[in-house]
């Protein structure tokens, strides 16, 4: 490269050698260092362990693909399948449940929206396990629901607990706020003028919803969907407490590998595969939304 730099380029030091003179990188340096050590560091360690021989507790062994081969040849695909299936089902139900509530909060409830927000956010202050155990008491044989129905109508619904639908109920209940609040933001972004214009041009209520509201609130839907999907994919307590481990989710296998199996490398392989799967899904979905537009930079 040759030639004198333009005045605008001279004003700010350029090149890696002078990065420390620029305020941006300088200010970001401590946080970057913290992120690197606290966020990327453990991930790198997990990745490194996935290449260690089975049941070793040291990173000083010769790398091997043995654990990857063992995970692929074993029946772990079942756990991945159940995690994906349950997370997808929960997200679809969450969308159906949350969209009307979010619409009300964004457009209809007015000052009551704050109360609804508080009511939805309040359970987040209570431990997830305690909330799920509350559901156990409701769904248990001779529990609150079964006992009440028996007493009032002579009907028994004793088979609700320890089933796949009970796990889905738990996932929907626990991750509701993570779908709801992004949806509220997404729906708030839809300008009223566009809906009015569509109505003036003869669109029906359903057409306005399908052609205007749904596409324009899509960023909120996508973010809510991704958040709740990723959280549900890595969930553990719902299948344990409400599902009675009717099915084994992948997070359960990861926990078992690190603890009872004493096989850190296998737990690391399962973690790496789960992270890769989550990452792939997020990347694919984020290609369809523009974060800059959502936060108003463009």
């Amino acid at each position, binding site marked *: 490269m040759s030639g004198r730099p333009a005045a605008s380029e001279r004003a700010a030091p350029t090149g890696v050698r002078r990065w420390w003179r620029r305020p941006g990188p300088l200010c970001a340096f401590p946080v970057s260092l913290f992120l690197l050590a606290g966020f990327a560091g453990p991930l790198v360690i997990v990745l490194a362990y996935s290449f260690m021989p*089975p*049941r070793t*507790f040291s990173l000083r062994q010769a790398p091997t693909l043995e654990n990857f081969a063992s995970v692929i040849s*074993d*029946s*772990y695909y*079942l*756990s991945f399948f159940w995690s994906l299936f349950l997370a997808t089902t929960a997200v679809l139900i969450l969308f159906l449940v949350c969209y009307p509530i979010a619409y009300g909060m964004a457009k209809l409830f007015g000052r009551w929206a704050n109360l609804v927000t508080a009511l939805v956010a309040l359970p987040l202050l209570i431990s997830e396990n305690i909330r799920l*155990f509350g559901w*156990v008491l409701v769904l*248990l*044989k*001779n*529990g609150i629901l079964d006992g009440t129905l028996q007493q009032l109508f002579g009907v028994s619904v*004793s088979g609700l*607990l*320890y089933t*796949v639908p009970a796990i889905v109920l738990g996932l929907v209940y626990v991750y509701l706020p993570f779908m709801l609040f992004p949806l509220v933001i997404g729906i708030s972004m839809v300008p009223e003028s566009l809906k009015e214009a569509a109505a003036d041009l003869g669109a029906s209520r359903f057409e306005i919803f399908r052609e205007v509201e749904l596409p324009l609130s899509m960023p909120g839907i996508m973010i809510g969907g991704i958040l709740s999907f990723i959280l549900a994919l890595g969930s553990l307590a719902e299948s*344990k*407490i409400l599902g*009675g*481990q*009717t*099915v*084994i989710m992948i997070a359960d*296998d990861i926990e*078992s590998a*690190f*603890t*009872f*199996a*004493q*096989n*850190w490398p296998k737990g690391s392989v399962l973690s790496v595969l789960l992270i890769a799967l989550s990452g792939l899904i997020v990347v694919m979905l984020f290609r369809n939304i523009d974060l800059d537009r959502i936060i108003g930079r463009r």
Partner: protein
Amino acid sequence: MYRNSLNRRNFLQQTGLWAAAAAAGGLPTLANAAREKELNIYCWEGYNSDDVLDPFRREFDAKVRAEGLTSDPDAVNRLRAGETAVWDLINVNNPWAREMMYPEGLIRPLPRERFEPMFENMMPAFHPPYPWAMDKSGEELLGMTQRFGPFNFVVNTDKISKATAEDEGFNVFLDSGMQGKYGVLTYDNWNIYHMCVTAGVHPFKAHTPEEIEAFTVACKQIFNGAKILTDDLVQMNLALINGEIDAYFTGGTYTASSARYDGATQVRGITPKSGPMDGKGGIVWIELTSVVNNPEVSPLAEEFLAYIQRPDISKLVAFAEGTYNPVSQMGDPAVMGQFDADELDAIQWDSLEEEMANSADYDINPDYAEMYEIYSAAKREREA
């Protein structure tokens, strides 16, 4: 005259000096001094109870932090991952100290002259030299015993009588009439041992391919017939009391005692009368509390080990919140005198001696890794 001239430049200089001093090892000395009055305990629930800890805090004017653990392997993992620098005492089940933690340098021996005489006051089975408290050479004392208990399975005696359950042993779970009427408490390591016993295989010896095959069959049978799998003993007891299930696989005094003490005396831990472990069909666990090989171990660690041997404190440990268990110190009349009839009934004192006689000690399974793979696959592939 001293003049306070602290400004931004010399503040940075002084901070740098302190940082350099810390890096050179100045601060660890201060930290070490501070640990005279500090104790960190990593233990099964009970030792972390304020009922047990508060009198110690007052007597030794100490800041005691205790964290409950949820599984032995998890606890040992944390020490392996570097938490030897955090904890002073660790309380896990018997084989871990001798077979894993001491050989791996995670715990340190106790002074025998001070602690071995305390074993003399315990129940006869624990008299010194008590093998699980010693290292493999028999020279070093690795910890103190206290809580113990038979751990096999639990039934609702309104549905399955104690006598039937003891006679049939784990075969109770293979009965076609029990399909969908029992739970599996997912204490995975215990389940593997009990599934061995169900298959008629000694869990603590090397296994032949035929024995591994028998274990595989038992594993699948037990999982496929189970209604509930959970690692929560309260949830399991609740299901038992509510009639959701009639029995649960893997359990004992440790899991049944809290329900029994609440009045649900139909919940009972069962030890099979016979089985493949040299004629024994049950397994008993014994906790061992050891001093962690912490580079700056608190001097209070040994004081705490002596403190929990006292009669009143032994009783508090046995009946701390959560689970209730017999303690080896019950060999001392002063400790026995602390328990009333309901408490003794909760820990099944009436059958404890017989259950101990029918039990082998919890130990290491040489084929655990291979069996765990089979076990976890059977759990995953369960026909729900």
